[in-house]
Structures are given as structure tokens and as C-alpha cells.
């Protein structure tokens, strides 16, 4: 039980003023600008946008600055801001096949049309601290350029689909359920699960995915394709009577090709897991695809292994870090009355127990 308590306003005001000073840090060090955060901590900005479910790099940079770099606090700030805005509508589903790719790799086909494009990746770096970055004003090397490929890069799964070697993706309702508008309700269909996963905590989704690799609901994934790039966002504008592109977002997409299934009526086929995340976030996109695949056990007619990653209620109820933080951290707020009643209770029980013990001892003597 939470009981309202009055008082403490002065202490709270002073605490917040001190927080502002601590946030600024040593004033001999120049202040961070939002543009610096946006441009130089871009992956932090990406994560706040993905988990905050709002794509706006400047707002995410502001949230990171205000939260002193606490990512979950920044996500919380973005979520809270989002609720103050009216929603104009929903876009047409983004066409990731027409993505302007910075990066596109496949772990299943070496020589795929369009090739393996590494893009700006941490892969193959030695993970040794680069002390040259500690010195400011260093020269930034000019990246090499090559002749760009014309046309869209085809999805790897489309090659498998052509031979019918991978299951079809069924169409779903044109208006998917939206967990930001209605409470999470079970059974959760795949669109709802994908929404929860794409905004879920990266660490949580990663751990769930990792658990499937270690044997808790194993689903033998291959990264059929991982691509990072920008896609236009198109929306029907009622007052115009046609659709226009109202923006552009950078996204990371992962398509996994998983263990196959067959039945008496259907020959064996590969199955799919899918990850799509705002910004450049490969760890999150791959994790999402693995967990998506694990959660599909029922519709694919697989056995319930009792693995945590197969349990939609467990995964979806615990993936949201703002909800989790809210419930976790509320226990540090005043619970004086709750605790008083517990205290009185334990004093009474102890007194009764000790009295009973005394009686037993007396009787024994």
C-alpha cells in the first residue's frame, strides 16, 4: 500500500538543484551539445529511439544528456514525451527490400547478388583501446569509395522462397494490434510480439536469444541476411487523397533461416525468424529474430520445451525496461505505513512465540 505523505519539498528542490549541477560536471570541461551526442554517440541515440519507440535523433540526444547517460532513464523520458503528442496516423509498411543499404551481409550465401557489403562495422576490429581517440582533433581518415551497385539488393530469403524451400509469410490484419494503445493481452499474435520485441530492452532480448542458443528452446538459426540502411516512410494523407513520403528512418533488419519442418501433407521447409529495429543495432535485430522464432513454436506445430524464450507471457511481460524499472524502483519510495504494520505484526508474533516457549519450559520443569 502506498500512502501519500506531505513534506520534503525543500529537500526535493535542493536535491534536484544539486542533480543539475552534478549533471553539468566540472565546468572547466566544455558542455556537451545535443549535436555532439547525436553525431558522436549515434548508437546510444539509436538505442534510446528503438526502446523509446520514437524516432527523433535530436530528442533522443536531449534525453541522454538529461539522463546523464542513463539509457533506461533516457528511454523513460522519450516514452513520457511521446504520450504528449497526437498521432496523425500510421505509415504503409516500410519496404526493406528497397533499403539504401550501408551494410548487407549473409552468413548463408557467399556469392549472393549484390555481394557482402561490410559497411561501417565493429566486426574484425581488434577490440584494443585506440588511444589516438583520446587526443582530440585527430585526423579522420577519408574512407575509400567504389562504384555503387545500381538497383535494390534482393532479400536472401527471396531466393529460398523461389524454390519453395522456406515457409511463406502469411498476410495479417492491415491494422495490427498496438500495445501502446491497448493493454498487452494474450494470446499475443506475431505482430504484437514483434512490436514488444523491437521496443524491448536490448539486454533482456539478447539474454533470451542467447538462452535459445545454449539449448533452452534451440532453433538452429542461420543469419540469412543482416542489413542496415535507410528506408522512406510513406503515409496516406487524407486531405491530399494520396500517399507521400513523410520521412526516412535508418533501420537494422535481420532475417534468420531456421530448422525445417515437414508434415505428412507438406514437404520439409526452412522456417523464419525476423528482427527489425530503429537505428543501427545488429545485436538487437539478431536477438529479436531468434526470440521471434522461439515464440513461434505453437503456430509451427513444435513441442513446448518449457523454455523461457518459448513462453510469450514471460518474454513480453518482462521485456519492457521502463515498466520493469517503474515497478522495481517504486519499492525505494516511502512505504512507512506498510512497514509499520509489518513491524507490529512481527513484534506480536515474536512475543506470542516467546510466551508459548516459556509455557512449554515451565511445563517441562
Amino acid at each position: 500500500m502506498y500512502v501519500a505523505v506531505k513534506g520534503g519539498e525543500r529537500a526535493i528542490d535542493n536535491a534536484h538543484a544539486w542533480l543539475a549541477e552534478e549533471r553539468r560536471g566540472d565546468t572547466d570541461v566544455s558542455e556537451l551539445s545535443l549535436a555532439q551526442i547525436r553525431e558522436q554517440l549515434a548508437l546510444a541515440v539509436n538505442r534510446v529511439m528503438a526502446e523509446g519507440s520514437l524516432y527523433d535523433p535530436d530528442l533522443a540526444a536531449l534525453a541522454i544528456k538529461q539522463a546523464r547517460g542513463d539509457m533506461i532513464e533516457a528511454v523513460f523520458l522519450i516514452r513520457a514525451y511521446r504520450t504528449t503528442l497526437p498521432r496523425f496516423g500510421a505509415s504503409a509498411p516500410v519496404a526493406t527490400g528497397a533499403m539504401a543499404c550501408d551494410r548487407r551481409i549473409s552468413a548463408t550465401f557467399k556469392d549472393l547478388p549484390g555481394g557482402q557489403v561490410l559497411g561501417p562495422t565493429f566486426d574484425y576490429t581488434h577490440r584494443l583501446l585506440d588511444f589516438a581517440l583520446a587526443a582530440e582533433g585527430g585526423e579522420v581518415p577519408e574512407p575509400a569509395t567504389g562504384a555503387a551497385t545500381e538497383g535494390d539488393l534482393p532479400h536472401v530469403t527471396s531466393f529460398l522462397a523461389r524454390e519453395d524451400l522456406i515457409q511463406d509469410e502469411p498476410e495479417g490484419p492491415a491494422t495490427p494490434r498496438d500495445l501502446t494503445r491497448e493493454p498487452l493481452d494474450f494470446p499475443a499474435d506475431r505482430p504484437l510480439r514483434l512490436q514488444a520485441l523491437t521496443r524491448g530492452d536490448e539486454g533482456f532480448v539478447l539474454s533470451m536469444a542467447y538462452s535459445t542458443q545454449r539449448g533452452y528452446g534451440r532453433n538452429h538459426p542461420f543469419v540469412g541476411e543482416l542489413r542496415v540502411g535507410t528506408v522512406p516512410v510513406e503515409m496516406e494523407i487524407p486531405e491530399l487523397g494520396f500517399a507521400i513520403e513523410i520521412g526516412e528512418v535508418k533501420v537494422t533488419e535481420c532475417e534468420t533461416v531456421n530448422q525445417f519442418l515437414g508434415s505428412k501433407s507438406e514437404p520439409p521447409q526452412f522456417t523464419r525468424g525476423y528482427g527489425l529495429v530503429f537505428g543501427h543495432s545488429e545485436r538487437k535485430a539478431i536477438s529479436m529474430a531468434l526470440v521471434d522464432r522461439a515464440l513461434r513454436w505453437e503456430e509451427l506445430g513444435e513441442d513446448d520445451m518449457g523454455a523461457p524464450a518459448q513462453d510469450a507471457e514471460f518474454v513480453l511481460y518482462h521485456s519492457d525496461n521502463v515498466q520493469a524499472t517503474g515497478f522495481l524502483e517504486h519499492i525505494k519510495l516511502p512505504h512507512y505505513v506498510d512497514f509499520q504494520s509489518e513491524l507490529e505484526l512481527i513484534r506480536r508474533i515474536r512475543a506470542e512465540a516467546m510466551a508459548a516457549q516459556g509455557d512449554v519450559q515451565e511445563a517441562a520443569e
Partner: protein
Amino acid sequence: MSDQIEIDARKARLSTLAKAPHARLLDLWQGFGAAPEHEVLRAPEIGTVMVRGRAGAVGAPFNLGEITVTRCSVRLGSGAVGHGYVQGRSHEAARAVALIDALSEDGQAAALEAAILLPLRAEAEGGKAARAEKAAATKVEFFTIVRGE
């Protein structure tokens, strides 16, 4: 047929303007001259649009997350109506786009195309091409090492 050509032109115009960097858009708009007399039909308003994806890139639609969008609608003295949508949060940019749209509907499309749309399109395409060329340089060229037996 000509209706469709007009719709396509307006669609292309509004799509380019919606994605343009606000500062650059406003610079070009100011360079075009003073804003015409107009009535505001819908004051600039910041909101969001829910972006959707598809399961497996081709299947059931799902909600990916929202983007911020600002919109505005205006009417010129002549009666021409313009609608502005821009990504992000900028009242000025949304109003400028609505005015550019209204003026284009009012016979100034060619002048605005030359002064504003052409440079914005060229810059957007230039930026895209530069990234594509950097990406191309990171394309893996496999070669097989022949083992001497």
C-alpha cells in the same frame, strides 16, 4: 491522365520537402522571396506517425515505433490550398512547405522547382550516392587460395 501527372508531381514535391533538412529548406525558402499573404487553415502542429514493418519483410504488418512529424495547412488569397508535412519538429519548416505547396498549386511550380526542389533533390541524391560509394568500397572480393598438392 494529366490529373495523374499532377498528382505524381505534387507527391514528388511533398516527399522531397518532408525529408529535407529544416535549416536548408528554410534557407532556400527565404531565398525565394517574402512569404505570400495567406490564411492558416491548420496551425503548425507536432505529432507522430506510427511506422509499420512486415513480419519477415513481406508478411503481416506490425508496429515498429513512431516518428515525429509536423504538419500545417494554408490557403492563399487566390484560394490555392497547400499542405505541409515534415519529419521532425519544426513549425517554421511545416509552414514553409505548406506555402511552397500552395504556391506550386497557384502556377509557380516551375519557379519553385528550380529554386527549391532541384537543389534539395540534388543534395539528397548526392548524400545517398556518397554513402553508396563508401558501402561499395567495403564489398568483399572473395578469392580462393589454390592449395599446392
